[in-house]
């Protein structure tokens, strides 16, 4: 019987692996076919030499960095404060951080377009810079569930109260406590959230496209509609980026403290 179940396990695993590996192999093979009759990396070269690729990718990296900064500024003090002083509010905050999973991105951005138009009180969409800011804000909401969870998990492993009291006795103000005591202690958790945010944001299509920003996601879509081999190369590049982010998270998690000195 044991032997039988192992056979089924291998079968399931084998079929699943085929389904997951085949598209990657096929995409790779396809991406090498740009030069007629032989394999070459021409598709990759043409992607990397495309000024639009460089411009949109740089744009998305910058947007991702600002998204991470805004996310950290928003989440770390809030999660810290909730743990320290307002534990009763935790369910409310958790509920809010889960909302972006309930409200699809396309609905959120639709709401933005309706609410922040040129004639509104907060005319984000009146200028290009304002729209960039709105894109960063939109991405921050998308990454909020992951960022909050990561930071909250990190805070669970340190003794927030004792650290805060010790810092206060030594005369530290709130900014110092958060920036120089709490943040370094949860840095690994924050970085995990940051890389996950990066993976989500870098190729995002819906928000960037509807806000008309020259980001990597809309560029990908445009290339897909207009060329044959470059999309495959880009798909693999994107997969590599996602893979890189996830690997970094895994590596970081090895350095994370496992348990709290005093769990609260």
């Amino acid at each position, binding site marked *: 019987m044991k032997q039988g*179940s192992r056979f089924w396990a291998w079968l399931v*695993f084998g079929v*699943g692996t085929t389904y997951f590996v085949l598209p990657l192999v*096929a995409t790779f093979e396809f991406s090498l076919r740009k030069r007629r009759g032989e394999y070459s990396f021409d598709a990759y070269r043409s992607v990397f030499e495309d000024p639009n690729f460089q411009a949109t990718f740089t744009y998305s990296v910058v947007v991702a960095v600002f998204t991470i900064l805004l996310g950290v500024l928003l989440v770390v003090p809030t999660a810290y404060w909730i743990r320290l002083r*307002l534990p009763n509010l935790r369910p409310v905050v958790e509920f809010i951080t889960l909302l972006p999973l309930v409200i699809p991105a396309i609905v959120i951005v*639709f709401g933005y377009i309706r*609410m922040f138009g040129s004639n509104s009180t907060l005319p984000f969409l009146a200028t290009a810079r304002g729209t960039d800011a709105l894109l960063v804000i939109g991405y921050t909401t998308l990454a909020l569930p992951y960022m909050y969870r990561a930071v909250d998990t990190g805070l669970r492993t340190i003794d927030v109260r004792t650290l805060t009291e010790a810092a206060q006795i030594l005369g530290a103000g709130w900014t110092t406590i958060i920036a120089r005591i709490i943040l370094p202690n949860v840095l690994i958790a924050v970085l995990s959230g940051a890389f996950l945010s990066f993976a989500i944001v870098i190729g995002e*299509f819906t928000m960037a496209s509807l806000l008309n920003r020259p980001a990597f996601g809309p560029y990908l879509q445009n290339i897909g509609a207009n060329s044959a081999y470059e999309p495959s190369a880009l798909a693999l590049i994107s*997969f590599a980026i996602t*893979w890189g982010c996830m690997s970094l998270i895994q590596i970081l998690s090895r350095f994370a403290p496992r348990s709290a000195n005093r769990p609260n």
Partner: protein
Amino acid sequence: MADSTMSQTASVSPGAPEISRLRLPLHWLGVTPFFIFALVFLILPTVGLIAGAFKNAAGDYTFDNIIALSQPKLAAAYWVSIQISFVSAVLGALIGLAMAVAVVRGGLPPWLRSATLTFSGVASNFAGVPLAFSFIATLGRLGVATILLRDIFGINIYSLGFSIFSFWGLILTYLYFQIPLMIVIITPAVDGLKKEWGEAAATLGATNWQYWRMVVIPVLWPSFLGTTVLLFANAFGAVATAYALTGPSLNIVPIQLFAQIRGDVLYNPNLGYALAFGMIVITGLANLFYILFQRRAERWLK
């Protein structure tokens, strides 16, 4: 949920020591930026849309937009969306569960388990435009797998009616992020199946099938259902994959909404808001069920 918490907070604070009354403003100051952000950039835009769904162009309250959702094209869009989300969620959940059970309990080498989990973490985030590219390169009309099947096995899947741009093509593509998401979420629940339960069942003379039917399935059932509805919501809100795969032609809700936002193709902004409202209702219900099932499931995970 929010109401009960608020009243709970209110009932706690009178009992708190005097110092806390002195510091009360400061207390709230710490979370104010977060709540302002959530209000302005998450809640108000959504509430604005929902309110717009119940107004006509003149600003009067009406149910006309909601009723107009039943016009054939939009009703069909919802129906196709629900079907695609449902089928991809159920298939993704079943296959994902089978794979999770295989790597956790199937006696496979331990490194396969961590490799599978790592890959699932990557693949569940590998959605959108690049995923569509991969499947076009694999199963498109000139895709590698299509050509291989034709030239080696003599099976022309396109003459058999398959197309990557069709209903089943879309589901096959969605499964690429649905299955890994299921694996990531369900593995802790499969881990929670204690060895002792199997031994206890065996001691009482249960067959393998009885153990599965009377122990494993009832324990995993809430997690399974909960994750399935989460996958449903996940597929329902997905825009980029479908858009990159089929272009604006496929009649599903997110793509209809995308076209509506781009250029008011319905010639009625308020009907667009109603379309978005319908999406929130469906994904909201799915998430509500997810939370309910997850609560039920947590009983066994202690």
